[in-house]
């Protein structure tokens, strides 16, 4: 399918005719692929899908005796990707809007700890609201400083990361808080609904919502235009401030949700949660094909990027590599993915 995109992009003689052909009746899936995703695609965003398939095949062959292909293991990969995927899908909007959020890895433990402690004293409803509220509060403060006071998001979220880390560490004096509220544990990560893991359901929900908002709705168009050129976006009447504030708030709330899901999954909260998540999320989003410089992005790419990183992690553990070696492998993968993506983009 991407070749069609390339064909229409380069072939000047065919003009707009191929589009009209697509315009003929088609199935729902074809509509989604043909109009929404491919259309907003740069070729570099195909790299993540190819990498994913190649790595999967490599692991499937190389680790066939190590249990890589077992159902349990593959489910495990998906679940491990869950929280990163949730943050990554929302992060596509942040980067595409030309912003960055360095505070997500710090919000994860704060939200987990706040949720865990409020769960103990006030129960499920208030506890869950407190978790989401943590994200809203941090995101709201960031958005205010960025859009009203006018400080770049890089600096605001750098400061916010320090503040939030400090807050998380002062909750319960670095001690772990256990999460024993059954309702919470069921809905946030450990339980199942109709036989499907709630963590998986959250991931699907966020991924679908972000895909629709970013690739099919007006919001996404305004986010991309804002990240592309704020002056132009403002000149055509897009409410740039509102767009920037919104993506920063959404990002913080996604991180807070991820923190709650960690707490629900491992049934405890500690300040060490999410320590490496910021870099993993940025890696997943960039590998997925989103521009670091705003204006372009892909949510499905980020989702697959998250799965790719979880699979890499899983495969390397099964292969017997230690943490240090995994880290090096991750770095190499990011560089390779970015180079491949860049070359393909230039060749177009």
């Amino acid at each position, binding site marked *: 399918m991407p070749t069609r*995109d390339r064909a*229409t*992009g*380069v*072939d*000047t003689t065919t*003009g*707009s005719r*191929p*589009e*009209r052909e697509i*315009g003929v009746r088609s199935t729902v899936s074809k509509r989604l692929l043909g*109009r*929404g995703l491919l*259309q*907003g695609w*740069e070729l570099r965003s195909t790299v993540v899908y190819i990498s994913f398939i190649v790595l999967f095949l490599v692991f499937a062959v190389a680790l066939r005796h190590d249990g890589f292909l077992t159902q349990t293991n593959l489910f495990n990969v998906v679940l491990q990707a869950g929280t990163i995927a949730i943050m990554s899908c929302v992060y596509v909007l942040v980067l595409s809007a030309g912003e960055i959020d360095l505070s997500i890895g710090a919000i994860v433990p704060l939200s987990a700890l706040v949720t865990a402690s409020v769960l103990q004293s006030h129960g499920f409803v208030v506890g869950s609201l407190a978790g989401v509220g943590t994200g809203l509060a941090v995101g709201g403060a960031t958005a205010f400083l960025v859009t009203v006071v006018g400080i770049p998001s890089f600096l605001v979220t750098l400061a916010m990361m320090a503040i939030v880390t400090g807050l998380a560490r002062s909750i319960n004096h670095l001690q772990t808080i256990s999460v024993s509220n059954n309702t919470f544990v069921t809905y946030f990560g450990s339980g199942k609904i109709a036989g499907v893991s709630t963590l998986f359901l959250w991931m699907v929900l966020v991924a679908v919502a972000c895909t*629709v*908002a970013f690739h*099919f*709705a*007006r*919001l*996404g*168009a*305004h986010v*991309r*235009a804002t990240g*592309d*050129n704020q*002056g*132009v*976006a403002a*000149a*055509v*009447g*897009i409410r740039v401030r509102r767009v920037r504030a919104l993506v920063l708030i959404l990002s913080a709330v996604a991180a807070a949700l991820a923190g709650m899901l960690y707490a629900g999954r491992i049934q405890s909260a500690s300040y060490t949660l999410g320590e490496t998540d910021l870099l993993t999320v940025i890696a997943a989003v960039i590998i997925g094909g989103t*521009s670091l410089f*705003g*204006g*372009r992005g892909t949510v499905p790419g980020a989702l697959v990027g998250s799965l790719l990183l979880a699979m890499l992690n899983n495969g390397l553990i099964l292969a017997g590599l230690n943490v240090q070696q995994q880290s090096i492998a991750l770095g190499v993968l990011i560089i390779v993915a970015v180079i491949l993506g860049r070359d393909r983009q230039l060749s*177009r």
Partner: protein
Amino acid sequence: MSTSVETAAALDVRGIGKNFGGVVALQEVDLQVRDGEIVAIVGDNGAGKSTLMKIIAGAQLPSRGQLLVDGTPVHFDRPSDSRAHGIEVVYQDLALAESQEVFMNMFLGRELVRTPFALLQKRRMRRETTAILDELDVHVPSSRSIVRNLSGGQRQGVAIGRAVHWARRLVLMDEPTAALGVQETAKVEQTITRLRQRGLAVLLVSHNLDQVFRLSDRIYVLRRGQMAGHLMTKECRPDDVVAMITGSR
């Protein structure tokens, strides 16, 4: 279609003036643009062209005077007011979102959507984009091409296409070919003449007198914030205009 004298002009500028503090940038200026007419404004740097443009575009408030669209007094506090009255501006620096597709630029900030969730009507926007660019004879590889990958002439074609698509009354062009090469300029000029055929009113600001003579029906000359002259293009020579611009006659 012969325009009768009684028909109100698409844009009627009456006694518009602008002061910046004690400095008079623009004295009482009068100007009319009718449908199917390309009217040029020429003048030296600092003659007040940009100020007048900005007032018509709604980017600046006039200190005095009155703007009328189709004979109805209007008041522009901001650019969106001007747009709401069917006036579109084409800037020399394009004002396109470069990483976005042609059709998204065409509808930037005014996307066609349907409920729920304000979902984009991409197919419809692409179809309308193709139609308008075809009509103006602007050739781009596809309505889904990324603007960054287009030539300067194609980009200005898209910018003009956008203005034409949304302008119900008037297209305001501020040095539309200043950033372009010779061939691209020729192409854009072709596009501009098509606007006249389409019956739109066009107000053109240009430093390029040759261009003004190729394109315009009438010429207004601004000098030091005053209207120094008003000429029918066919009845004058470039020398006359230069003389008015410099004030040597």
